[in-house]
């Protein structure tokens, strides 16, 4: 066979061991960062896109937003919150030197970065990670970027410096007031809106309920507001329809039509209700897994 002039990933294809974790960082006991080698994806990735990961061959396919990507290092970065079986198991098993069973992406439409001149980028909790590439994208395109981040308390904060470095203004909100404004991110948005009358766009990423309230906050001002939706996904390629969301009077597939949508048109209650589709199985899976960990630990 002839030489492969463009090995997609290091010559011998996607051998199972090739989605190698090269760096891990723990931000708190529930949030961790994984940096994974995938040169081709690092080159292709754009802000707003996501990947689908399988930790092992019996695992579930779970979507995670690209929190960073570095074409030079040839790596992509994910920030994960341990909420259920899969994300906790990954927390326990994904160490530097180990590999993921599957990693596919980048998926979804990239964010539209070009036109806005002054933007507010809002990250709630874990949402700080996925909104970071967009803040950086806006900064690189010459926009004036106001960062708003919100956490329950100071101890849970991460990437504050990294985020701040791409922002012209930076507002921190904590629920308990241990840092910055005491309150949720909408308080930060209100403050930004009060100080600037010429904001073109607000980008908000975080839990659905937070995005719902961000939309509510900006609606009276008529400012274009973009959110990144996170419905349950299977394939991420538009093939199962599990990720369908209501946007205006249309049904959209978040994985191929999104994941970003006009916040003022999104039916958040529908999204929140659909996220509970598998609660029973998820609880069962988590309990079973925790039980097996206890047994293993003696």
């Amino acid at each position, binding site marked *: 066979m*002839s030489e492969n002039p463009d090995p*997609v990933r290091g010559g011998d294809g*996607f051998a199972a061991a090739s989605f190698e974790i090269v760096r891990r960082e723990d931000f708190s006991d529930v949030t961790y960062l994984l940096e994974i080698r995938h040169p081709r994806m690092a080159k292709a990735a754009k802000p707003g896109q996501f990947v689908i990961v399988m930790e092992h061959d019996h695992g579930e*396919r779970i979507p995670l937003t690209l929190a960073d990507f570095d074409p030079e290092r040839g790596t992509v970065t994910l920030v994960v919150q341990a909420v259920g079986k899969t994300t906790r198991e990954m927390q326990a098993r994904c160490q530097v030197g180990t590999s993921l069973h599957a990693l596919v992406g980048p998926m979804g439409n990239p964010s539209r970065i070009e036109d806005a001149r002054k933007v507010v980028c809002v990250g709630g909790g874990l949402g700080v990670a996925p909104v970071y590439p967009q803040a950086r994208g806006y900064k690189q395109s010459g926009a004036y970027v106001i960062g708003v981040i919100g956490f329950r308390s100071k101890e849970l904060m991460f990437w504050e410096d990294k985020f701040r470095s791409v922002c012209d203004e930076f507002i921190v909100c904590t629920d308990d007031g241990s840092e910055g404004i005491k309150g949720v991110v909408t308080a930060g948005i209100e403050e930004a809106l009060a100080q600037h009358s010429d904001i073109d766009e607000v980008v908000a990423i975080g839990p659905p309920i937070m995005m719902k309230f961000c939309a509510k906050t900006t609606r009276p001002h008529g400012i274009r507001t973009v959110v990144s939706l996170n419905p349950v996904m*299977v394939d991420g390629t538009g*093939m199962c*329809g599990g990720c369908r969301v209501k946007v205006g009077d249309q049904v959209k597939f978040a994985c191929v039509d999104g994941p970003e949508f006009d916040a003022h048109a999104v039916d958040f209650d529908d999204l929140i*209700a659909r996220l509970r589709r598998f609660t029973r199985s998820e609880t069962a899976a988590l309990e079973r897994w925790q039980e097996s960990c206890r047994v293993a630990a003696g």
Partner: protein
Amino acid sequence: MQEQDPQVRATNFAEVACGYTLEEAMREAERCLFCPDEPCIPGCPVEIDIPEFILKITEKSLHGAYETITDTNLLPAICGRVCPQESQCEGVCVVGDTLEPVAIGRLERFIGDMAIAEGWESVPYIEPSGFRVAIVGSGPAGIACAAEMAKCGCDVTVYEAFHEPGGVLKYGIPDFRLPNEVIDAEIEKLRQLGVTFEPNTLVGRLFTVEELVTEMGYHAVFIGTGAGAPSFMGIPGESLAGVLSANELLTRCNLMRARDFPEYDTPLQMGTRVAVVGAGNTAMDAMRVCLRLGAGTVCCVYRRMRNEAPARAEEVQHAEEEGIEFHWLTTPVEILGDEDNDVRAIRCQRMELGEPDESGRGRPVPVPGSEFEMDIDMVVYAIGTKANPILGQTSSLRLDERGYIVTDESLATSIAGVWAGGDIVTGAATVIEAMGAGRRVASEMKAYLGLRDTDVVYHPERRGSAGKRFGIDVDEHDYVRVTA
């Protein structure tokens, strides 16, 4: 052919049809009349020399029968199982005029299974041609094209978005119809031909179709991405928790192995009273999967009549035997939920068939005042699929108004060096048609690359026999070597 008892099989995922024994196959083969005008051959989309392979079975030359079949169809174990034979080869079999037609599909499966069990292969002498070919999508269309190009010496890479190759064969068609081992065995044969599989690769997003022919340096590209996007009806209640597409159900069950939850992590919550909308192969598969996953009752809701159901006849019959209720001439108009956002019932309407429509079948029209409710707690849509949007979003490929890739008669797309075939061109069709398209493109690619269009399979027993295949003398065909 032996089948598992309906009561037993409705609780397991083992194959329904057990396959012929040698004696059964010989007996069935004897029924063929070896019609001189070979009416069954044009009935097969890839024109397998049916009388020839059946003759070889009667002569107990099973390896010979395998080579006859694999001249045109690489995956007999698969097609023998899933082709809609009644509307293809067996539909035109002369014996069928008065009796049951010769069971061509089952004989083909018998040979295909035998080949897997015995490890037969038709790996030819391959001389590298120096050309590199990329295939996008590992369904039957992509597999067929990959095999042909590998056989004539090209360095072939198949890109697949999922973590495992096989397309609908893997994620859609359940094990009780087409066991995963059969697909894996066929994929393994492709690997032996030197084909490289690159799963976890979403073409369009990781790199574009254009990049394949430019910076990645492929000499020819085939797109076989299928028509995977599920349709919904747009009636009220579709976002309730118990409403999903058959694709989601089948992917969770087959590819992600939700049927073995919690050993496998992917969940699939089964209803107790399931309604499946539609009556194609996908609907039959969805219903029978639900039964096997423990649904109490499963019913089919279809707006036309049984004889208009698009599924293979055998599948409808199997579904009936397994206890599926059929509501013909019925269509849902609303899905009703409870306070927990779960499905509680569906409201349906009776239909009657009016004037024939474009498809030649009676157009279903609602009967006024015929609405009624059914107690249902899970609704599965199997009402057809649409073109996947990703390549359209990310390339300059010309698409038609419904999003399918536009090709000319030679299946060439609007980008030079790029062909497309299978469901992404025709809309949802059949496995063998997709494979036929993959082969046709392979022959176009060979012409484009200046490669001799012929198989290089070595057939010692055919030496000296007369006849032409692909317009080339069989004798020559056996000895030709492909050169760049």
